[in-house]
């Protein structure tokens, strides 16, 4: 029963005082200034990342940012209906996706265009959904990546089920679910973690905490670090600097290794920041504090890798020019693919609803065909 006394001292219960301390610190290998830290637990997982591999990562980060900026411009020019920028989240996506094998399978949200790029999705295919010519830019089985999910968090269950299937089939492929901090509030995501733990599924829950669910700060979804939630479900978790491509890659490799060797699910919280709007329809100036924007601008993932490579003497003018040239080429091709995309034929609206003939739909299709030829027969 409610009493004033109880309301005044809600935490007098002894058990409540035994909460673990919130885990605020991040795994970090590259500091925002481009300094490389010693992280013995993590370093060994990325010991193969040599100068060439580092340059390749820089190129990836640069190219996907360039794609993102070009897509935003294309939306402003009326060529795309909408675009969800990933600006600021490049390292989280590149670092994790470049850790995967071809036979792994990813289930992402709609902002993971850099993941798609790493999986080998063609440039034009990245924007079919946003131009509105198709609901899936690619065949999921061609690239090991499901069609990006629009319903918040729904894909985490799909990833878990896929992982359960890998285990049943006796293969060591891993499923990865990408989602955001907002999604962790959804029932689906919590249910996915319960299933993954119960069935010891080889799945990675990769949460990009970009601090915003449209206008809502992460504090509304989680009053403690999100990574702290997973152990309650029986899932080990890591909290990494999401703007540090090396830390993200190391953490992902650890989780992959655990999954492949029968250790079950892992939860990774990659702490990053959405530097752009939620989508091109959004206006962050209505809710975003400029100070935190500036603070995070200084933690830019490309900037820190650039500084590190400069310090190591790897980033020569030649390398710099090659990276720029690659980004320019990709942007040009990307724009041309987007603008040159053909609209779907009208009658394709009826395609692929069912595998077998369907009498009601077949009749509608037939009548619509008659309608089109009737209306287009002549105009007044």
């Amino acid at each position, binding site marked *: 029963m409610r009493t004033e006394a109880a309301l005044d001292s809600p935490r007098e219960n002894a058990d409540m005082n035994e909460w673990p301390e919130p885990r605020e610190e991040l795994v970090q290998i590259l500091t925002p200034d481009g300094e490389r830290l010693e992280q013995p637990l993590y370093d060994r997982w990325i010991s193969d990342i040599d100068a060439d591999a580092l340059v390749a990562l820089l190129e990836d980060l640069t190219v996907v940012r360039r794609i993102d900026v070009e897509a935003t411009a294309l939306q402003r020019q009326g060529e795309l*209906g*909408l675009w969800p920028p990933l600006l600021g989240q490049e390292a989280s996506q590149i670092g994790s996706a470049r850790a995967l094998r071809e036979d792994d399978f990813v289930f992402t949200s*709609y902002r993971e265009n850099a993941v798609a790029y790493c999986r080998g999705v063609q440039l034009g295919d990245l924007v079919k*959904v*946003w*131009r*509105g*010519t*198709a*609901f899936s830019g690619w065949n999921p089985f061609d690239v090991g990546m499901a069609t990006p999910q*629009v*319903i*918040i*968090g729904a894909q985490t269950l799909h990833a878990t089920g896929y992982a359960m299937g890998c285990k049943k089939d006796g293969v060591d492929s891993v499923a990865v679910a990408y989602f955001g901090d*907002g*999604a962790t*509030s*959804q*029932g*689906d995501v919590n249910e996915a973690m319960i299933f993954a733990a119960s069935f010891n599924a080889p799945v990675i829950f990769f949460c990009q905490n970009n601090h915003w*669910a*449209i*206008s*809502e700060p992460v504090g*509304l*979804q989680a009053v403690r670090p999100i990574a702290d939630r997973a152990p309650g479900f029986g899932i080990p978790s890591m909290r990494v600097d999401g703007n540090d491509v090396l830390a993200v890659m190391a953490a992902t490799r650890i989780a992959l290794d655990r999954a492949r060797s029968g250790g079950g699910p892992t939860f990774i919280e990659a702490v990053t920041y959405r530097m752009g709007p939620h989508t091109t*329809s*959004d*206006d962050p100036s*209505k*809710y975003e504090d400029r100070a935190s924007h500036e603070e995070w601008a200084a933690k830019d993932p490309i900037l820190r890798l650039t500084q590190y490579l400069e310090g190591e003497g790897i980033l020569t003018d030649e390398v710099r020019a090659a990276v720029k040239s690659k980004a320019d080429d990709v942007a040009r091709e990307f724009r041309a693919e987007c603008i040159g995309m053909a*609209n*779907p034929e*009208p009658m*394709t*609206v*009826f395609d692929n*609803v069912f595998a077998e003939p*369907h009498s*009601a*739909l077949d009749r*509608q*299709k037939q*009548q*619509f065909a*008659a*309608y089109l030829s*009737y*209306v287009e*027969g*002549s105009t007044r």
Partner: protein
Amino acid sequence: MSEQLTLSRAIGAGLRRALADDDRVLLMGEDIGDLGGVFRVTDGLKAEFGAERVMDTPLAESAILGTAIGLAYRGFRPVVEIQFDGFIFPAFDQIVAQLGKLRYRTGGAVSMPITIRVPFGGGIGSVEHHSESPEAYFAHTPGLRVVSCSNPQDAYSMIREAIRSDDPVLFFEPKRRYWAKGEVDLEAEPEPLGSAKVVVTGADVTLVTYGPLVATAIDAAAAAVEDGVSVEVIDLRSLAPVDFETVEASVRKTGRLVITHEAAQSGGLGAEIAASITDRCFYHLEAAPQRVTGFDVPYPPAKLEEQYLPDLDRILDAVDRVLGRENSLTGWSAK
């Protein structure tokens, strides 16, 4: 006092009025606070009434509805925003299995004066799950009232009535008409929910619709004049219950009925209206009622939505069918 408002702002004005008139009214939803909602319907309300009454919620539709039910148990009058039509499904269980049944379950002891605002429909070139028309699921569910506005004045009036109702109300907002402007009399006493309205009078065919297609139907009626055809347009406004008396009176006059909605055809509102009006006006019908609807396919990608959405030409083709004039099914005779 009359103002020129967009439909979006008119709903916002209705919400402001409801918040001011009754301190048990509170708003809940994703991004409705500082952002003012993705369609800016709740713009400025958090600043005016505070975060206790205009609550940004975590991203969990089932939880938004479920906690609204709990708040209603405590005597609050929650007004819930579901950000987009396609996001209502996580909350389906709370709406259908809980909200619609609570009064019945408790023998009338518990009232659920919850309003669920849902931007719905297509035509905005958006991505998957952002253009759906899920109204029939709820119109089919006992215990729920379902309404849809089509113009700023009705939007202002109907949102206030929906909040005032002691029953749960699904309030469907035509998102492609959010920016349509109209004169709104802010002092007008709201009409009770549940009535349809004849928005164009005509003699030959009754054209029934609601929400986003009301404007399309009015355009169709204007275009039909050139064919010498007089179309009467009815804005249903209430989808559950449907004001069949208004539709019936019109069909008794015209003898012909065309229903149009964006939602898919099978099992939709159009089927219910055709069946009920056939029952009520069988001897007056000169032709079988016709439905002009979205096809029985998932709402398609933006570049195909023009094919999917009923438009002026498809509506008038059905008008020709009920009038026994040349149409797409009879074909075109060369003469």
